[in-house]
Each structure stands twice: as structure tokens, then as C-alpha cells.
């Protein structure tokens, strides 16, 4: 038996972007169907590092990031849990004077955005953060950046959307989506036919198939972070830590575990599944023992990876389709989507309800790839810094 659904908006992909859009749209009074090929929030949105960070983002992302910064403290009201969100501060380390110069330059460049960055020389950094060790030429602290638990936050947005009246169809992959006279017609799962006025493509690393179906492929590739977590340890690391140039990032969660990452994992034979790389994990572990001598004797208990969408200019696609009215894309967050995702959901709601948004998103238009050849599709993302 065919199951037929109809709604104002259908959303393909129940990650944090799709789920927060679903929630925002429901709160705006529209009917919503949210579909995911697996569980909501189980891919990049749910298995990422958990950095809630503005520092280090390119200038073009900062208005978006600032909008998200206003949403994160409201999680309790929005989704019923705080998601372990805390404004712990994000400390970015420089290993060399050249890297520290980059941090100083960044702080100067983004001054007008109000991140309130605090710069420390190597000696000052070690005085201010006495748990720190190793070769540190300097550091930049963004005191109001922080961290949260993706494993809880992302599924909770989907649950909140459902509780607010969205129809959430998990394990329901979309096979076909076509534009019709009055909107869109979709086929999904074993037996679902869906009609809607607006369509949102927030299918993450799987989004390009949908975009290509509407004649606007993007050069989306996949990246696989490589994560390591220790056993729970006494609280010692108060901030979320990153490094200029990437390669290492680390935070200590409320439970006491140190979550650290760096380098890349790899895809399995089924490219929807990935594994962390042992080489990357060992390199991350080595860096952790250098930076934190107090971790000598600690054990790591698990490695993991996930699948994230990467675009060649390290910026996401957010905004209306260039080919199809009523279609909106939001994907390819290049390993840095967690913090901005709730704002992207809000922006998608703006676009659906009013056709415009106050947040500048022109730089993220899918049309910037219109004249790119398809060979970019296979290009590997190499920019490591953004994965946190």
C-alpha cells in the first residue's frame, strides 16, 4: 500500500541542518515532512567533534556563525535539553611564530565581528593555562566559544521537530524528486509518495545526488574525520582546543573523557561507512601526550569516524536553487557545520516563509559552481583545519 503525504515543506536529510529547519518551520506554522535515509542526526551531525566555535572561520561565515551563537544558549527552551552546551572558550594554539602571526592577523581582521579574541604569547599562554605544555609560540582565546555533545543535540532537534508536529520518516531514503506545477513530488522509502510546495535538500554528504537531479551539481566530495576518546579523567582541560594549521583538536567533556581528533579516516567498501585511520589516531595521541603531560598513563577507549561533505572552497552551499523555484539547498559544511547548523535551519525557514533572510548568504550560493566542470566532483578536501 502506498503511503501518501502532503506538506508545505519536505526536507531531505535529518541531520542538524534539516532537523533545525524542520523545527523552525513548524514553529512558524508550516506543515513539515522530514526524511532521513537512516536515523536522524546519526551521520556527521551526530558523530562530529562537538566544537561550537566561531574562531577560525572565514569572515564570510561570521554573520551566520554569530546568528548561531545566539541560538545555542536557548537549547533548553528549543529542544528540551542543554545538549551539554557550555561556553568554555576556544583556545587556538600556534606551534611556531609564523602560526602565531596568522592568529594575530586573524584577530585583527575579524575585530569588527565582536569575537573578543584574546591573544597570548607562548609564555603568557602557559602562565594563563598551566596545564599546557610543549612547543607553543602563542595562542588565541575566544572566551564565548564552546562545545556541546553532538550525539545528543542532533537527534534532540529531530525529536523536538516531531514533538512540534513534523512528520519524521526515518529509514526513508528519497529515490526521486521532481518539480511539478505546484511544487514537488517525491518517492521515498518502500512505499511513500510525498507532495510539497517547498523542498529542502539538507542531505549532507549525500546531497549532491539531489542537486544534480535538479541540474545543478556541486563539486561535493567526502571527508572522514578521525576521532579518539580517552577513558574519563579528572577535570583539567577547561577549554576546547585547536591548533593553527589543523592537525589536532581536543576537549574534555563533562563526564571527563578527552575527545581528540586530527587527520582523516577512510571509507569502507560501502562508502557510506568509514573507519578512523590508525596512523592519524596514533599521531593525535602523540600530540596529546606532548601538550598534556598530565595524560601520561591515560588510556584511549575508542576511535571513530563519520562522513562529512566537503566543497573545494571550504564554504557550504546555503540558499535557493539556481534552477528550480521552491527548492533550497544547505549542505557541504566541510567539517565545520555543527556550530552554524541551527542558524542554517533558521535561515532556511526565513527563505521558505519570506523568500529572503537578513543573514548574508550570497557567498554560499550553489550558483558559484555553475561553470565548474564535473571533474571537481572527485577532488579530495585537503583543508584540515575546519574539522572541529
Amino acid at each position, binding site marked *: 500500500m502506498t503511503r501518501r503525504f502532503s506538506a508545505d515543506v519536505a526536507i531531505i536529510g535529518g541531520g542538524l541542518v534539516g532537523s533545525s529547519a524542520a523545527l523552525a518551520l513548524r514553529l512558524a506554522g508550516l506543515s513539515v515532512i522530514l526524511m532521513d535515509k537512516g536515523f536522524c542526526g546519526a551521520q556527521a551531525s551526530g558523530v562530529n567533534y562537538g566544537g561550537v566555535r566561531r574562531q577560525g572561520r572565514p569572515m564570510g561565515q561570521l554573520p551566520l556563525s554569530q546568528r548561531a551563537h545566539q541560538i545555542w544558549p536557548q537549547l533548553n527552551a528549543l529542544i528540551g535539553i542543554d545538549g551539554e552546551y557550555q561556553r568554555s572558550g576556544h583556545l587556538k594554539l600556534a606551534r611556531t611564530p609564523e602560526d602565531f602571526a596568522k592568529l594575530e592577523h586573524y584577530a585583527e581582521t575579524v575585530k569588527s565581528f565582536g569575537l573578543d579574541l584574546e591573544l597570548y604569547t607562548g609564555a603568557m599562554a602557559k602562565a594563563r593555562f598551566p596545564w599546557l605544555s610543549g612547543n607553543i609560540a602563542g595562542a588565541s582565546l575566544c572566551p564565548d566559544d564552546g562545545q556541546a555533545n553532538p550525539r545528543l543535540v542532533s537527534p534532540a532537534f529531530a525529536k523536538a521537530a516531531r514533538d512540534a508536529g513534523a512528520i519524521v520518516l526515518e529509514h526513508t531514503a528519497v529515490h526521486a524528486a521532481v518539480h511539478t506545477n505546484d511544487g514537488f513530488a517525491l518517492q521515498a522509502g518502500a512505499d511513500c509518495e510525498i507532495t510539497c510546495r517547498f523542498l529542502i535538500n539538507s542531505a549532507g554528504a549525500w546531497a549532491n545526488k539531489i542537486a544534480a537531479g535538479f541540474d545543478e551539481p556541486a563539486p561535493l566530495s567526502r571527508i572522514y574525520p578521525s576521532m579518539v576518546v580517552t577513558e*574519563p579523567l579528572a577535570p583539567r582541560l577547561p577549554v576546547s582546543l585547536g591548533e593553527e594549521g589543523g592537525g589536532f583538536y581536543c576537549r574534555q567533556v563533562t563526564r571527563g573523557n578527552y575527545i581528540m581528533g586530527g587527520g582523516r579516516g577512510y571509507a569502507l567498501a560501502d562508502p557510506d561507512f568509514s573507519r578512523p585511520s590508525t596512523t592519524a589516531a596514533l599521531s593525535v595521541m602523540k600530540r596529546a601526550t606532548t601538550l598534556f603531560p598530565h595524560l601520561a598513563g591515560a588510556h584511549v*577507549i575508542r576511535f571513530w569516524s563519520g562522513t562529512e561533505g566537503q566543497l573545494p572552497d571550504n564554504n557550504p552551499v546555503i540558499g535557493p536553487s539556481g534552477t528550480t523555484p521552491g527548492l533550497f539547498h544547505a549542505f557541504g559544511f566541510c567539517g565545520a557545520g555543527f556550530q552554524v547548523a541551527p542558524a542554517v535551519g533558521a535561515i532556511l525557514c526565513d527563505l521558505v516563509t519570506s523568500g529572503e533572510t537578513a543573514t548574508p548568504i550570497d557567498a554560499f550560493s550553489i550558483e558559484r559552481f555553475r561553470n565548474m566542470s564535473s571533474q571537481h566532483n572527485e577532488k579530495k578536501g585537503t583543508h584540515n583545519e575546519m574539522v572541529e
Partner: protein
Amino acid sequence: MNETASVVVVGAGPAGICAAKALVAAGLRPVVIDEGLRAGGQIYRRPLVDDGRSATDLYGSEAAKATRLHREFDALLPSIDYRPQTLVWNIADNQLHLTANGVHQRIGFQNLILTTGATDRVLPFPGWTLPGVYTLGAAQTALKAQGCTIGKRVVFLGSGPLLYLVAWQYVKAGGDVAAVLDTAPFAAKLNLLSAIRFDPRLVLTGMSYAARLVRRGVKLHYNVRPTGVDGSQHVEGLNFKSGAKTHSIACDAVAYGFALRAETQLADLAGCPFRFDDRDRTWLPATDDAGRTSCKGIYLAGDGSGIAGADAAEISGELAALAVIQDSGMAADPRRMSVLAGARRRKAKLRDILEKAFPFPQNWFDQIPGATTLCRCEEITVSSVIDTVHGNDLRELNRLKALSRAGMGRCQGRMCSAAMAEILASTQKLKLPEIGRLRAQAPIKPLPLSLHEAGS
């Protein structure tokens, strides 16, 4: 450069020893990697240093087998590359990742025989995390390897052949066994009668343990459900129901378990397909009669491929080695293989009967209070897991892990996932195979953060 071996055997229990022996007999020189200090596995574990106890002291009725396997393995030493005290913690791209003494090494393989064995299957009950509560396997290890008991006055609890065996070993070693509490009804034991024709020696020996315990004045109770452990810092007593009656026994240690669970994480990381096994109530790597998986060059033997016991492990270990030999284009005696395969099938039938005699405690969670710890690593209670299941209408085990944090700690679900699966299935009125299985992640056991590459 990383080395590549033609055959690697992981584990040196009865399956690993017999696999190595057959490989050496065919002229191969296998690498044998074992976590233990000395070969023998859990069942034929040797003391860390010889302490004057005889094989009969250590292994009782199984002394002759233990002595033979130890002797055979010692004789193999010049012909194998033996690496004791070495943990295999990951498999990727036909490479094993090892750690020994805090040093990381890799070794490639053309053929791999996994004989990773089993651990106790445990279920939570009120007080199970209190110091003084051990698994049956741990109680046995303390006795075999270290020559000590887990307490002065010990209660044995659970279901499975090990229950009576370990209790008897404690009595024989001079321990004070306060009681043996079987969670199954006495009637279940009558099933043993039909097992006699498959292995009379094993069944009669097994039955004799209960008789000997009674003769020594040890109280046996059937149909038991524990209701709590006395003591705030350490076990001081155990409370339980036997049928409608409630009892209380003073003791300073409890050993418990519900048969064994296969250690399958390496097979999972190697990419082997799994199948659900009704008897073991869990997912197991799928193999043919000889232990071949559908992954080229990967073979399984022993309890790690499904609980079948030590004698079956000897058979399946040799069979897997012969399969490696055959698949490598060398001569393997087909008659020997078919004899072994037949013997293995008979052991499997015996196992089916033993499972009826020592059944899994159905409806265990009907009487477990919600405040009981389910996942001891992450300190997650039974009710918190059930609330997560209800609150999110969960139907899949990995999702339950993600949302409840149960199974995310040091043991990575090795100890609690059986209980998690039972709770999820019973709460949602689903069958166990419908809720999936926890995906293995490297490292399969905790690794030192300071682990470094050999030579660096």
C-alpha cells in the same frame, strides 16, 4: 617496512594451540599472538610461575588434556613465531595492529585464524558492582593463575556448566562455598540425561560436581533470582528468592555468570558477515563447517565463533588450520577434515542440550529494580536505559548506545551489551535479531595514550 606473515593465529587456547600444531605439521611457520603470559587460554590457564600445584590440583578432571596441550604447545615453540602478552586491537587492510609493552606494531597476513575465545556473559542485579562480586571466570582465574580465592566464604550464582565446576574447584582447593544458586529450575537438569549419548564422560563428570558439592554440605538452590547484596563497601551477604521463598546468606564474595559470550570484535573489524545465533542469543560471525568466513583468508575457531567448549575448540582449531592449508593449495587430508567436521557437529548438538540444562534466565529484568546499574563503565541505570528507549521509541542497539551512553565506556559494551540487548528487545516487545548488534570499534580494548610506534 611492516612484515607480512603467511598465517597468523590470534589466541593460544585449545583452538589456537591445535591450529598452530596442524599448521606446523604441514610445514608452515605461523605467527601465534596471545594476550596471555603463557599459552593455555582461559580454560587451561597456567599459573604465572609454577607454584608446586599439580595438573590435577589445577584442572581436575581435565588435567590430562591440559597437560597434553601445554606439552604440545611447548614442543611447537621452535617451529612458530610466538608472541605472548600481545594484544591485537585492530584489523584493517589485511593488517593486524598489535601492542606489547606499550609499543605499537603492525603485521600483515595472508591467512588469519581468529581464536579469540569468550568471556562470561553477565547480567545486572542489585549490588553486582560492589567489590567482592566477580564473574565465574574471574573466580576461576584467581584460583588457577594466582592460587587464591576471591573471598573466604563464597556464593556461586548463575547458570551454566561453569557454575558447578568452579564451585567444586573452590571446595577442592579448601575454599568455603556458602551456597550454589542456580537460576534455572531443577527440572532443567533432566535434559542432561539426553546428552549422555553424545559425551557420557563430560555429562557424568559435570553431574558429579553437584553430587560432590552436596556431599560436602554445600546448599544448592534452584530457580533463584538475586534481590540484593548486603554491604556498603564490600560484599557482606547475598539476598535471593528461590521460587516464592526469600533467603539471605552471609558471604564476602559472590561469583556469578550466565554461560559465556563470544569475543567477536576482531572478526567484526575484519569485515566478516554476522548471523544471529538463537542458542547463544547473539550475533556471531558466519562460517562454514571448517571455520571459513566469506572474507578471503580469514578463519575462525573456538568459542570466539560460537560457544561450544574446550573440546570443540580443539576440533575447530585443527579444522580451521586444515582449511587454510587446503585453500593455500597444499595437501590437507580430506578424510581427517570430514571426521573433524562430524565431531564438531556432534559437539554442537551436545551444546544445544547443555543450553536446555543451563538455560538463560528468561524474564530476568522483570524483577530487577530500575535503580540497578546496567553499564558499570558509564554508570547508567536500567531505568535510565528504559526511559531512553521509551522517550525515543528506540528499536536499534547502536542508537540506544548513542542516546543512553550505555556501552560507551572502557569495556565498549563487551560486558553490558548482552543485557542492553535483552532490555531493548523486551521493552519494545521485539525479537533479539530485530534490534541489531553493536558495531565494533578499534581499539577493542583500552590502549595506553602513550602508545608509540616500534623504533620511534
